[in-house]
Every structure is written in C-alpha cells, then in structure tokens.
C-alpha cells in the first residue's frame, strides 16, 4: 500500500511578519513529499487549530520571531487537545531562547528548531515522530 502523504500546516501566529523561514520550509516540506498548507500571517491559535482540523493535518509547524512563542505555542497545543487532535505533532521554530524550550516541551510542543538548523534535520524529525 502506498504510504499516506504527510500533511503539515505551517503557521505564523500573532502579528510577526518574518516569514522567510516559514516560506522556505514550505518549499522544503513539499520537496520532501509532504502536503503543505501555509496559513499566512496574523493567525490566532483558534485559526491555526481550525485549519488543522479542516485539513486533517498530521503536523502543525509554528514559526515566531517576535518573542510571543510562550503565549501562542502552548495555546495551540491545548486547543488541539480540546478538539480531540492531541495526536497532531506540534513543532516550532524561530527566535526562541534555550531557557524557554523546556517549558514549551512540557506544554506539549514536540520540538523547537532554532536559527541555523539544517532543514533536512527538521524533515527527518517530523517523519520520524509523526503519529500513525
């Protein structure tokens, strides 16, 4: 049986406009054979989770460079749980201080990818950790 294509939502929560990384990863994920939905900018946690629900996503990738990760990332995780989508893999990236990583992981974000991470590393992580 053919392997099901992974579906990933790439989202920019909040008002941050730095989308170079998010857009680049969209292209990298697509080249790696994933189905990619990019939400664009100015997404609330509700909008992101709604997109994940509508698209029946396997993965949600969050990107933030404006320092709002502690506010937004855990909220996306808990809203996913509320919608019975706790098996969706949530990963994040951007400008995220090391000292925030453990609390984000404790809140249910699976992994955080900082500046300078190789894109193939991100792809491998997702492929290796997605549920199903």
């Amino acid at each position, binding site marked *: 049986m053919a392997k099901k294509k992974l579906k990933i939502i790439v989202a920019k929560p909040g008002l941050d*406009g*730095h*989308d170079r990384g998010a857009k680049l990863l969209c292209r990298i994920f697509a080249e790696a054979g994933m189905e990619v939905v*990019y939400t664009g900018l*100015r997404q609330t946690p509700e909008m992101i989770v709604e997109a994940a629900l509508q698209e029946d996503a396997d993965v949600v990738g969050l990107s933030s460079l404006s320092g709002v990760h502690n506010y937004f990332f855990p909220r996306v995780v808990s809203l996913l749980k509320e919608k019975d989508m706790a098996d969706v893999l949530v990963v994040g990236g951007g*400008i995220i201080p090391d*000292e925030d990583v453990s609390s984000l992981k404790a809140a249910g974000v699976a992994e955080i990818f*900082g*500046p*300078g991470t190789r894109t193939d590393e991100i792809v491998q992580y997702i492929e290796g950790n997605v549920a199903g």
Partner: protein
Amino acid sequence: MADKTELEEIKKGRETWEKGPLNKALSRFGERKKKFTSISGTPVNRIYTPEDTATLRYQTDLGFPGNYPYTRGVQPTMYRGRFWTMRQYAGFGSAAETNARYRYLLEKGQTGLSVAFDLPTQAGYDSDHALSMGEVGKVGVAIDSIDDMRVLFDRIPLDKVTTSMTINAPATILLGMYLALAEAQNVSWDKVGGTVQNDVLKEIICRGQYIYPPGPTMRLTVDLIEFCQKHVPRWNTISISGYHIRESGSTAAQEIAFTIADGIAYAKACVDRGMDVDQFAGRLSFFFNAFTNVLEEAAKFRAARRVWAKVMKERFGAKNPRAMMLRYHVQTGGVTLTAQQPLNNIVRVGLQAYAASLGGCQSLHTNSYDEALCLPTEEAVTVALRTQQIVAEESGSTDTIDPLAGSYYVESMTDQIEADVNEYIEKIDARGGTLQAIEEGYIQKEIQNSAYRFQKEIESGERAYVGINKYQMEEPPPENLLRIDMSVGEKETEKLKALRAERNPDAWQAALGHLREVTKSGDNVMPAVIEAVKARATVGEICDVWREIFGEYRPKEFV
C-alpha cells in the same frame, strides 16, 4: 579607462600570465573552489584588470562627490565634513522604559533616535485588542495615544534631535502625534527633523505590517509626503526600504532593484497627485542592508545612487539636484547573525559597518551580537554603537571620499549590479509596473527563489558559514538575555481604560467624525489626524475609521 594601446598591452600581459605562471600554479595546486561567487550568487572572476573597466567614463559614470550621477557620494565632503548619523533602532516595553534607553544612548554619543514600535502599533491595533495579546511591548515600544508619545520623548527636545520612526501603514498617525508634541514643546514644525518609514509596498512584499489594500494605503503615504512638503520641510517623508527585502533572502541586486521599483511607484503617485518632482523628491530617503561581503556591498551602494539619479532625471525629468540624490540609512544584516557562537557577530557587524562607510551611507544602525537570541541587552547595544564609532574614528575609511573608486573589481561589480537592477526594472515595467508585479507575486517569488538558493548552498557546504556549517563547537546555552516583562500588556490595557474614561468624549467623537469625512472626500488626511490625536484618539481607533472606509488587505500567499 586605459587607452587602446595600453589595453592591448594589458591583454598581452594577461595572456602571457595565464599561459605561464597562472597555468603552472593551477596545475600544481588548483584553487579552493571550481566556481567563485559572491554571497548574492554573482560569479567572481579570478582577477580584474583595466580590461574590465575599459568602457567606464569617469565624468559620466562616476563624477565628483555631490555631482550627478552621485556614484561617489551625495555630498562634496562626505565624512570629512561630518560622520554619518549614528542611529540605533531601539524600543521595547513601555514608553517610560524606552525613554530611559534613548536618554542612555544620547548620553553615550548617539546622534539621532530611531523608534522601534511594537507590532500592535505597527499593525494599527491598540494594546487591548485581541490580536495584540502577547505582543504588547515585545519588539518595540507600545504607543496607543499621544499620552504615550509624550512619555517617550520626555526630556528630549524635539528641535535638538532627529527622530526616525519605523512606522508604515499608520505613519500619518505617529507623525501626527510627533508634530502635536513638538507644538506642545513650543518647537515650530519647520525646526523638527526626522524620518517616517511610510513604505507600505515593502510591507506587502515582505515585511507583513500592512493594514489596507495597496491603493488606499498609497493614498495615505502620499498625503503624508504632500503635507510635509508644505509644513514640515525638514522631514524625510518616506524611507523606501530594501533592508527587509534583503532580509527576506534577496540578492544585493534584487535589493536595489525592488527598492527602486517601489521608489518609482511612490514618485509616480506623487506626480499623479500634481506634486512637483523637484520639490518632493529631495525628501524621499532610502534604507538598505549591509551584509558581510564588503566589496559587493560597497559596489551595491554606489550602483544604487547611480541608478536612482538616472531614474529621477530621465524618467521623472527632475532638474533639482537634490531630487536625484539617493540618501540612505543602513542597518547591518540581522539575518547574517548567528545564534551559534554569538560573539562572532561583533566581527560580522564590524565588516558590515565598514561596508556601509565605504559605500557612503548617511546614517547607520549597527546590530547587536545577541540579536539571533533575543532583543539586545544594554551591553550588546553599547558594543554595537562602539563598533560604528571605531569604523568612523579609527578605520580611515572616512578620511577620503569613496576610497574604492577605480578598483577594477569594485567598478566592474558596480556596473554589473546597475545592469542587473535595470534589467529587473525593465521586467517590472513590462508587467505594468510595481503594483502589478507585487500583485502577481513576481517580486515575492524572485526573493523566495534567492532565499532557497542560499539555504541550499549553506546546507550543501558550498558556501561556508562560520559556526553554522564550518568551525562549529559545543557551547553552553547563552546567558543574560533580555526578557520583556509580560505585564506590559496589562499595564497598557489599564492605561487605555483610564484614557477612555478621562478624555472629552465630544471632542473625541467630533475629531473622528471629521477624519471620516475628510477621508471620504479625498482631501489630505493629515490635519484631521493631528486634530484626532490631540483629542486623544488612539492608534487603533483612527486605524479603524480607515478600516471601515478602505477595507483590510488580505494577501495572496506565494509559496
């Protein structure tokens, strides 16, 4: 610029060298790489000689500083007269905290202010709006009303400093507050100087802080330009920005090309308004990036000046020299900084500041070494300011004007960048102009392709990046990062509540009503904006008036 006989001699000399010593060295040792390219991907030759600059005509292509086409600089004395303005972009938390940072920077020898606003202010939302949650005071200072602006400039006389404000879609409002404040300080408008970014097109292309659709947002931009031309003559009415285009991944030539394409769109909108190019264009200013590849960057700045001068003269028929001068601010490349071994960033910033000085910038912001980790600490900001002071005072680049002129490589690269820029401008013209090219996603896609190429080069190891794909090392997690107090949002919300209770509701309502009428009538909005901010209307309330009339911009995503 060598004569024909000399060129022939040089050609012979080169051929002899190639067949002899070069060939021998190549066959014995080879070279480090098969292909050498600049960070922009432009091929770099082994050597440049007078053959590469044979078509260069000194008087028409370079000229003297302060003379058309301004390749060598816009002022006759450049840094021998005075250094560039050292202007560090700063702002975080509340107006009071930021005011303290400004007074600290001024005390340390900074010569101009540069206001970073938080994202809610930039996107036209008050601190208590649902979309502002988590963002208040984060990447800049939170400004909701003229009350905050008064605190921001407390004990800073507005006739003694110049202030640059990174504000775009709501630029009319923040400038309105600044002018109202000047009035309150008894400083007449002809004495205030500074800049608003006011460049809404690059927000749509790459920076993301847009509010309204291109047409109406351009109208606000032009209203501000027109108003200042009449009433605030020392104000730089726009800072047409390539900085963010480069940060998003463009090459050096694309940075200049798309910025000048935006500049053409603004100049055309002003001309269409009935304004005289010789009067308004002298106050259009620019904002560029500086990467670590010093020589390519210096060539880029030189090429940009030449292209803009020709555009203004040939396309817009400018006669006033000021209207043809490309004056610009530089910020060193944020995206070039690494979270790995962050102290290395000091060296990167040093080289980038050196490039900016060799290129002839009018003002400069040097980034802090910790910016890939967090907002800069006070220590990091001081090192950054000292870096540009060292370039200015110690490097010698400021003692003679345009010191790289005549370098076979730099002149040849200046020509190459100019040609690449002109090719893009022709392509954009052929698509029906800048707005059309943005609407179709052409500019965005070109930038994304360059970002992708660069990432692939880094990951394949084809391009070395210290600490990223070469010379990596294990390091402990960084310490002493600046944290922003999460309670800023709550405090700002409290302040807003008090403001809404205290202000005169009749005056407030009347002012917003008048603004609505003026906006619909098509008249210049600036006087009504100033009236509204004086009646203590907030940024969000004024932006809402325009949201009702103009609608909100929803971009198509091109990925």
